[in-house]
């Protein structure tokens, strides 16, 4: 069964290249003002078949211990692959995780993964939620066994890799491939960068405030520099989350978390690593009134400036990305 025959495949952001092997190689397409991707595609060359396989894996709850939770359970496409309205991620048996599920987009440029940077390669990221007792709670080896016995995955792996062997390496590379295609570059900001529109006066004022106060950490055009910093927030007394300190055990990393992208904030609330703020205004009130207590915080903002800044942040919402059917649940593959 050809995996692509069952799925209408249309990726406007991707350019098809000629193939001599029957496999449909793909080159990731992105705007000229984006930097070179961090991901090394030479070690995992994109193909339509592998992306389709990765997409099926992403949406299939077979990855969890009790077949109830998929990646999309906490990374919903309609929320820019975050978990809107849930402060902390949810897992099997109604368990609640430690942190807010981050949006998944522009991952080819991301240098580390998870709020604390615990994972340093996109390929390996999926192992964390699969194995976490408060997320999917599964044994990776057992997940592969379930896929082998599933009746449909061996054929899909054959389409993608040339034979039916289902290995950890292939699983992880296919899942990474689908996530790599999640490029968000169709916002009003992007149209402005491409000369296809101009900002309204309030948006322009907000853009100037942003460039002055926010850009050092939320660096254009990805709107993050992927660094870690403390942001002056007191730790949640229940969660007791020390942030990156948990990974490096360096005192300077205590309560430090990765700078998130500001793209698609409309879809990804609540905000911060523990989802403590429901609105952008609450976030800016934390930052803008006190100047923040962290080392990388902006100047005090007047109320009007906050409104201008929020007007600019809205230009980073990318509805074309959120409603792109190529990123959604693959009904033709998994609906039965």
């Amino acid at each position, binding site marked *: 069964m050809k995996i692509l025959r069952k799925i209408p495949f249309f990726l406007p952001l991707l350019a098809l290249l000629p193939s001599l092997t029957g496999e449909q190689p793909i080159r990731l397409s992105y705007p000229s003002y984006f930097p070179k991707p961090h991901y090394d595609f030479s070690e995992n060359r994109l193909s339509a078949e592998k992306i389709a396989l990765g997409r099926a894996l992403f949406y299939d709850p077979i990855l969890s211990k009790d077949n109830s939770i998929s990646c999309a359970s906490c990374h919903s496409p309609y929320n820019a692959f975050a978990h809107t309205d849930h402060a902390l991620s949810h897992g099997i048996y109604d368990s609640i995780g430690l942190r807010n599920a981050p949006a998944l987009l522009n991952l080819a440029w991301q240098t580390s993964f998870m709020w604390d940077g*615990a*994972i340093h*390669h996109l390929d*390996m990221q999926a*192992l964390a939620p699969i194995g976490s007792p408060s997320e999917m709670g599964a044994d*990776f080896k057992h997940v592969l066994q379930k896929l082998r016995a599933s009746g449909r995955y061996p054929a899909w792996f054959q389409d993608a890799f040339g034979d039916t062997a289902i*290995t*950890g*390496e292939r699983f992880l*590379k296919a899942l990474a491939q689908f996530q790599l295609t999640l490029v968000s570059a169709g916002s009003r900001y992007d149209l402005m960068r491409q000369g296809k529109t101009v900002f309204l006066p309030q948006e322009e004022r907000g853009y100037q405030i942003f460039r002055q106060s926010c850009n050092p950490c939320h660096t254009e055009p990805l709107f993050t520099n992927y660094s870690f910093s403390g942001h002056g927030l007191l730790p949640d007394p229940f969660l007791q989350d020390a942030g990156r300190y948990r990974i490096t055990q360096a005192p300077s990393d205590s309560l430090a978390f990765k700078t998130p992208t500001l793209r698609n904030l409309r879809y990804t609330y609540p905000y911060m690593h523990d989802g403590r703020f429901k609105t952008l205004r609450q976030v800016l009130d934390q930052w803008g009134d006190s100047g923040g207590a962290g080392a990388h915080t902006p100047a005090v903002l007047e109320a009007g400036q906050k409104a201008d800044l929020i007007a600019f942040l809205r230009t980073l919402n990318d509805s074309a990305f959120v409603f792109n059917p190529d990123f959604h649940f693959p009904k033709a593959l998994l609906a039965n």
Partner: protein
Amino acid sequence: MRQSLALIACTLLLLCSFSFPFRHGAGSGEKYVLHQLRFEPTWEGVALEIGKTYPIVAIGDSMAINTLRFYISHVRLLDRGREVFDFPQQHFLVDMEDPASLSLRWECPESLAYEQIAFELGVDSLVQSAGAQGAALDPANGMYWSWQSGYIHVKLEGWASSSRARDKSFQYHLGGFQAPYTAITTVVLPIAKTGETRVRIALEDFFSALSPADRPEIMRPCAEAVQAIRIFADTFKTQL
């Protein structure tokens, strides 16, 4: 002259081969000799049995080992400290429960001189930083941390009557590839030129230096993991 020597050295390196799955320089006419290195986990000189309880009379303790798995990488043969052959397969997963994995076999031209074998105990940072990999390095082998990127260099699990853990277990998942907790360790052992070299892994030495009573778990990159993997490396003894 120097170029000639380099050419001869390169030729000899190419002639060396593993009996499985590598075979370089076949049909050269050079006489080959087969060598095998066999890891033998032991307890006080006797072959260790998985799950068997062993007494530690000196401290009134007893323990059983259920899992012993470790990576070795960058295996090379040395002649007076100089590398003369670098094994082509970069990483081997040695698993006490998989007898085939306990042996390394290779063939070399009879003329190649070497007296030591060296390897890294663990997975190097270059591989650790790469993406998903297969065979011995497939994360499905259960030797990859999921909560934090990184291979477990050595996994040693079991039970000890002195353990402070709830179920009297001990779990040593020794890893770490980034400073300051780089746990990968070099092991250099004398080796016979032909036949079989047995390398005993004297586990009683490990537990005389690291007691489950004091530390039943090491599960993350840390100073204790670095120390523990060095202790484990010191348990390797060649039986010529």
